[in-house]
């Protein structure tokens, strides 16, 4: 990410404010910490910011959540429950479980993901 971490939440906030007034609460997060957790957990190997990899792109996830009015709680479920995920070829696989039980850390990652 090219933005210094300190400024990211602010930029995200401004973006949210400017673009989608329908978002219920102003979700604050620490972008640098979130990205580190995300990468330390290998999430980036399947989720790219804009490109579809094995998992959907963060932009696509964020758009879907916006459209369906889903929130970070739903996202956290996906990273903690080890749910079955459906792959392109119809096969199923258990989703990766994040290595922390700290809800604050999980929330930070979820907010950052959904800010894309």
């Amino acid at each position: 990410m090219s933005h210094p971490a300190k400024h990211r939440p602010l930029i995200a906030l401004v973006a949210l404010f400017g673009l989608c007034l329908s978002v219920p609460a102003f979700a604050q997060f620490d972008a640098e910490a979130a990205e580190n957790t995300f990468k330390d957990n290998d999430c980036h190997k399947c989720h790219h910011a804009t490109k579809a990899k094995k998992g959907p792109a963060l932009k696509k996830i964020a758009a879907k959540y916006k459209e369906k009015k889903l929130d970070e709680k739903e996202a956290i479920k996906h990273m903690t429950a080890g749910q079955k995920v459906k792959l392109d070829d119809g096969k199923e696989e258990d989703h990766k479980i994040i290595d922390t039980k700290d809800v604050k850390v999980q929330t930070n990652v979820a907010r950052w993901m959904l800010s894309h």
Partner: protein
Amino acid sequence: MDQRALILGFSMLAFGSAMAADPASIDWGKIPATKLTLFYPGQSSYEWLRSEGHKGASSETARGDSCVSCHDDAKEEQRQGAKILRGNHPLEPTTIAGKKNGHVDLSVQAAFDAKNAYLRYQWKTQNPFPGNEHQYLRFDGKEWKVYGFPKLDKVVQEGKQPGIYEDRMSIIIDDGKVPGFAKQGCWLTCHDGQRDMPKQFTKEEVAANALLTAIKKNDVRKYLPDTRTNPSDWKTGKSVEDIAKLKEAGAFVELIQWRAHRSHAVGMADDGYVLEWRLADAGKDMFSGNADSKTHQPKFMWDEKKVGYKSITADQLRKGDHFLIREQNAVPFDPNAGWKEGDMIPDYVTSREDAKGSAADNNAIANWKDGMWTVVVVRPLGLANSDDKALKAGGVYNVGFAVHDDNITTRGHFVSYVKTLGLGAKADIQAVKLP
């Protein structure tokens, strides 16, 4: 420190031809440098990559997806190397004393003219000295025994032997004839069963193996999947005839290794290929073992008249260029020269004069300065030998790089994901045509 070798290198290379550039006088400042990151792969074999251990990626890897379709983060190699070496990682069962860095930054430049391709590499060594020494023969008062081993060997782990092993800079080249290499690169050659890999071969298994006995090998090294009926089992070698057909069809990869002791001493890089094993090209390498197979005594010692000593002792390690060069500074070993415990003579003797045939194709010049190796490998274009990949102007090749740093071999290297090299053609690394 390497001045002498450098000068020797220059004077010995036959750069007289009007068509070939002197690699030392190429203006490298004008040639773009590609920055690569090589990482510590541990035991990430062909088999591990296709196993449940490679979570969420085994079936994709098995169906042939490219590694970088997932491993594409700007800092991916740094992260992966650090993770594997952080301790308790399933891919690295050993704590390697002093191994701090999980990755190495490698700068690659390439040029070519009507005769040769020139590959220039630069990287920083972890140690404040060049790794240009290799194993020795040491007199223990009675016998000459090998002294110094690679750091992954048990004797070094247990502190019974010092870690001494040459640095290396290697490239594997595929011209598109090896299925899957463009996507998965060098990992096609790395398998369980090999030295320092999971399920390492036993002597008995090797002795009972039809292919390895037919090709007279007593261990398991790099091989390509197509040489086995089951690529994930080194024991299932195809027949020598079937493998000869693969070779004829070009289904092998070139492997050029610049060795800081055994080839650098005579201004060369070795020349090999990987097919059913990691093989040397036909002819004769520039290095040979210096231990007599019967007596275990050295065959050559230093010529005292030329270098001032017949042998060295451990306190002189890392304090000079300790190369034993057959035609320059070596004389036949004299068993009655009053040897004392602790006297040491290199375990390998090098020779440009003795190097012959296809194994003697590649030249190199190199120096180590301020913590950094600069190596230029000179590869003739258009080689017609059956064990070489012929490089041609306009050609694009899939390549993988490896750096061996700090006295280590086998899995202890740093490796790159596959890249492309183009000779005057579009690629990740573009070789510039010299005027």
